[in-house]
Protein backbone atom coordinates (compact mmCIF):
# COMPACT_ATOMS: atom_id res chain seq x y z
CA UNK A 1 0.00 0.00 0.00
CA UNK A 2 0.96 3.65 -0.12
CA UNK A 3 3.03 4.93 2.74
CA UNK A 4 5.13 7.78 3.94
CA UNK A 5 8.17 6.78 5.91
CA UNK A 6 11.30 8.14 7.49
CA UNK A 7 14.68 6.50 7.06
CA UNK A 8 15.87 6.70 10.67
CA UNK A 9 14.00 6.99 13.96
CA UNK A 10 16.55 9.27 15.70
CA UNK A 11 19.16 11.83 14.74
CA UNK A 12 21.71 13.41 17.05
CA UNK A 13 23.61 16.52 15.96
CA UNK A 14 26.03 18.96 17.52
CA UNK A 15 24.73 22.44 18.20
CA UNK A 16 25.73 24.70 15.33
CA UNK A 17 25.95 21.90 12.78
CA UNK A 18 23.50 21.45 9.93
CA UNK A 19 20.82 18.76 10.25
CA UNK A 20 19.34 16.72 7.43
CA UNK A 21 16.16 14.75 8.02
CA UNK A 22 15.09 12.40 5.25
CA UNK A 23 11.74 11.06 4.23
CA UNK A 24 10.62 8.59 1.58
CA UNK A 25 7.16 8.57 0.08
CA UNK A 26 5.54 6.08 -2.24
CA UNK A 27 2.39 7.77 -3.54
CA UNK A 28 3.31 9.24 -6.90
CA UNK A 29 -0.04 11.06 -6.99
CA UNK A 30 0.85 13.20 -3.99
CA UNK A 31 1.14 16.81 -5.01
CA UNK A 32 2.04 18.58 -1.83
CA UNK A 33 4.34 17.84 1.08
CA UNK A 34 4.67 19.35 4.52
CA UNK A 35 7.13 19.15 7.35
CA UNK A 36 5.86 19.43 10.91
CA UNK A 37 7.76 19.88 14.15
CA UNK A 38 6.44 18.56 17.43
CA UNK A 39 8.03 19.73 20.65
CA UNK A 40 7.55 17.77 23.83
CA UNK A 41 4.05 18.19 25.25
CA UNK A 42 2.75 20.12 22.27
CA UNK A 43 0.88 19.42 19.07
CA UNK A 44 2.71 19.40 15.73
CA UNK A 45 3.44 22.76 14.14
CA UNK A 46 3.87 23.57 10.48
CA UNK A 47 7.45 24.27 9.42
CA UNK A 48 7.56 24.41 5.65
CA UNK A 49 5.81 22.99 2.63
CA UNK A 50 6.58 22.26 -0.99
CA UNK A 51 4.50 21.49 -4.03
CA UNK A 52 5.35 18.70 -6.40
CA UNK A 53 6.19 21.15 -9.19
CA UNK A 54 9.11 22.46 -7.14
CA UNK A 55 12.48 20.93 -6.26
CA UNK A 56 13.50 23.22 -3.43
CA UNK A 57 12.01 25.72 -1.06
CA UNK A 58 13.72 27.80 1.59
CA UNK A 59 12.49 29.26 4.80
CA UNK A 60 14.20 30.76 7.78
CA UNK A 61 17.11 28.38 8.51
CA UNK A 62 15.19 25.52 6.88
CA UNK A 63 15.23 24.15 3.36
CA UNK A 64 13.07 21.41 1.92
CA UNK A 65 14.27 19.42 -1.06
CA UNK A 66 12.03 17.22 -3.18
CA UNK A 67 13.34 14.54 -5.52
CA UNK A 68 10.37 13.16 -7.40
CA UNK A 69 12.49 10.70 -9.36
CA UNK A 70 13.30 8.69 -6.25
CA UNK A 71 10.31 9.91 -4.21
CA UNK A 72 12.47 11.45 -1.54
CA UNK A 73 11.94 14.50 0.64
CA UNK A 74 14.44 16.08 2.99
CA UNK A 75 14.45 18.84 5.56
CA UNK A 76 17.68 20.71 6.14
CA UNK A 77 18.13 22.82 9.24
CA UNK A 78 21.04 25.24 9.21
CA UNK A 79 23.02 25.99 12.37
CA UNK A 80 20.97 23.64 14.52
CA UNK A 81 20.00 25.06 17.90
CA UNK A 82 18.83 23.42 21.13
CA UNK A 83 15.33 24.71 20.37
CA UNK A 84 15.29 22.55 17.27
CA UNK A 85 15.16 19.41 19.42
CA UNK A 86 11.82 17.83 18.60
CA UNK A 87 10.12 15.11 16.63
CA UNK A 88 9.85 15.92 12.93
CA UNK A 89 7.14 14.52 10.68
CA UNK A 90 6.89 14.60 6.94
CA UNK A 91 3.42 14.42 5.48
CA UNK A 92 2.04 14.07 1.99
CA UNK A 93 -1.19 15.50 0.69
CA UNK A 94 -3.23 13.60 -1.83
CA UNK A 95 -6.51 14.37 -3.50
CA UNK A 96 -8.79 17.37 -3.74
CA UNK A 97 -9.85 17.02 -0.13
CA UNK A 98 -6.30 17.50 1.12
CA UNK A 99 -6.04 14.35 3.15
CA UNK A 100 -2.71 14.15 4.91
CA UNK A 101 -0.72 11.00 5.47
CA UNK A 102 1.99 11.36 8.08
CA UNK A 103 5.28 9.57 8.40
CA UNK A 104 6.19 7.92 11.69
CA UNK A 105 8.38 10.75 12.92
CA UNK A 106 12.07 11.18 13.64
CA UNK A 107 13.51 12.56 16.85
CA UNK A 108 16.15 15.25 16.46
CA UNK A 109 18.41 15.64 19.48
CA UNK A 110 20.80 18.58 19.64
CA UNK A 111 23.99 18.13 21.70
CA UNK A 112 25.33 21.27 23.40
Amino acid at each position, binding site marked *: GESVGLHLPTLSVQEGDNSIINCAYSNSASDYFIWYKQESG*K*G*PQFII*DIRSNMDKRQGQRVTVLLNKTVKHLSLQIAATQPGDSAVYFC*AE*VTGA*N*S*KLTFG*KGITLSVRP
Partner: protein
Amino acid sequence: DVKVTQSSRYLVKRTGEKVFLECVQDMDHENMFWYRQDPGLGLRLIYFSYDVKMKEKGDIPEGYSVSREKKERFSLILESASTNQTSMYLCASSPWRAGTGELFFGEGSRLTVL
Protein backbone atom coordinates in the same frame (compact mmCIF):
# COMPACT_ATOMS: atom_id res chain seq x y z
CA ASP B 1 -3.19 33.94 17.03
CA VAL B 2 -4.95 30.89 15.73
CA LYS B 3 -6.06 28.48 18.36
CA VAL B 4 -7.27 24.90 18.60
CA THR B 5 -8.29 24.01 22.13
CA GLN B 6 -8.71 20.49 23.44
CA SER B 7 -10.74 20.45 26.61
CA SER B 8 -8.71 17.87 28.53
CA ARG B 9 -4.94 17.45 28.51
CA TYR B 10 -4.97 14.27 30.60
CA LEU B 11 -7.73 11.76 31.23
CA VAL B 12 -7.84 8.43 33.02
CA LYS B 13 -10.83 6.21 32.32
CA ARG B 14 -11.84 2.63 33.02
CA THR B 15 -12.53 -0.05 30.44
CA GLY B 16 -16.10 0.20 29.20
CA GLU B 17 -16.60 3.85 30.07
CA LYS B 18 -17.87 6.32 27.50
CA VAL B 19 -15.32 9.01 26.76
CA PHE B 20 -15.81 12.41 25.16
CA LEU B 21 -12.90 14.41 23.80
CA GLU B 22 -13.82 17.95 22.89
CA CYS B 23 -12.08 20.24 20.43
CA VAL B 24 -12.85 23.85 19.61
CA GLN B 25 -11.20 26.07 17.00
CA ASP B 26 -11.56 29.83 16.69
CA MET B 27 -10.40 30.23 13.09
CA ASP B 28 -13.69 29.59 11.31
CA HIS B 29 -12.12 26.63 9.51
CA GLU B 30 -14.31 24.29 7.52
CA ASN B 31 -12.20 21.21 8.12
CA MET B 32 -11.52 19.44 11.37
CA PHE B 33 -9.66 16.23 12.12
CA TRP B 34 -8.99 13.75 14.90
CA TYR B 35 -5.71 11.84 14.99
CA ARG B 36 -4.19 9.47 17.46
CA GLN B 37 -0.48 9.39 18.02
CA ASP B 38 1.39 6.33 19.22
CA PRO B 39 5.15 5.75 19.53
CA GLY B 40 6.56 4.23 16.37
CA LEU B 41 3.28 4.64 14.50
CA GLY B 42 3.17 8.39 14.01
CA LEU B 43 -0.15 10.15 13.52
CA ARG B 44 -3.08 8.14 12.25
CA LEU B 45 -6.33 9.70 11.10
CA ILE B 46 -9.44 8.55 12.95
CA TYR B 47 -12.20 10.77 11.55
CA PHE B 48 -12.52 14.07 9.77
CA SER B 49 -15.20 16.55 8.91
CA TYR B 50 -15.46 19.07 6.10
CA ASP B 51 -18.67 20.71 7.25
CA VAL B 52 -21.19 20.85 10.06
CA LYS B 53 -22.99 17.54 10.53
CA MET B 54 -20.66 15.93 8.04
CA LYS B 55 -18.14 13.24 8.95
CA GLU B 56 -15.92 10.81 7.14
CA LYS B 57 -13.95 7.85 8.35
CA GLY B 58 -10.22 8.08 8.39
CA ASP B 59 -7.78 5.21 8.48
CA ILE B 60 -8.63 3.80 11.91
CA PRO B 61 -12.27 4.64 12.76
CA GLU B 62 -13.11 1.39 14.57
CA GLY B 63 -14.17 1.98 18.15
CA TYR B 64 -14.71 5.71 17.64
CA SER B 65 -17.43 8.07 16.55
CA VAL B 66 -17.55 11.84 16.11
CA SER B 67 -19.97 14.72 16.30
CA ARG B 68 -19.87 18.07 14.48
CA GLU B 69 -22.96 20.02 15.52
CA LYS B 70 -21.29 23.41 15.20
CA LYS B 71 -18.59 24.59 12.86
CA GLU B 72 -16.13 25.37 15.62
CA ARG B 73 -16.55 22.17 17.60
CA PHE B 74 -15.58 18.60 16.74
CA SER B 75 -16.00 15.89 19.35
CA LEU B 76 -14.44 12.44 19.44
CA ILE B 77 -16.43 9.76 21.24
CA LEU B 78 -15.27 6.40 22.54
CA GLU B 79 -18.51 4.54 23.16
CA SER B 80 -16.85 1.85 25.29
CA ALA B 81 -13.22 2.57 26.05
CA SER B 82 -10.72 -0.24 25.80
CA THR B 83 -7.09 -0.45 26.93
CA ASN B 84 -5.85 -0.41 23.32
CA GLN B 85 -7.31 3.08 23.01
CA THR B 86 -4.77 4.42 25.47
CA SER B 87 -3.04 7.04 23.37
CA MET B 88 -2.41 10.69 22.64
CA TYR B 89 -5.31 12.21 20.71
CA LEU B 90 -4.72 15.26 18.56
CA CYS B 91 -7.38 17.51 17.09
CA ALA B 92 -6.62 19.74 14.13
CA SER B 93 -8.36 22.17 11.84
CA SER B 94 -7.56 23.63 8.45
CA PRO B 95 -8.99 26.29 6.16
CA TRP B 96 -10.90 25.17 3.09
CA ARG B 97 -8.22 25.43 0.47
CA ALA B 98 -8.13 22.60 -2.00
CA GLY B 99 -4.64 21.29 -2.65
CA THR B 100 -3.16 22.52 0.59
CA GLY B 101 -2.94 20.59 3.76
CA GLU B 102 -1.58 22.75 6.51
CA LEU B 103 -3.19 21.71 9.76
CA PHE B 104 -3.38 23.64 13.00
CA PHE B 105 -3.14 21.27 15.92
CA GLY B 106 -4.27 21.43 19.49
CA GLU B 107 -1.90 20.42 22.26
CA GLY B 108 -3.31 16.95 22.58
CA SER B 109 -5.31 14.88 25.05
CA ARG B 110 -3.49 11.99 26.64
CA LEU B 111 -5.97 9.25 27.46
CA THR B 112 -5.18 6.29 29.69
CA VAL B 113 -7.70 3.46 29.82
CA LEU B 114 -7.29 1.13 32.80
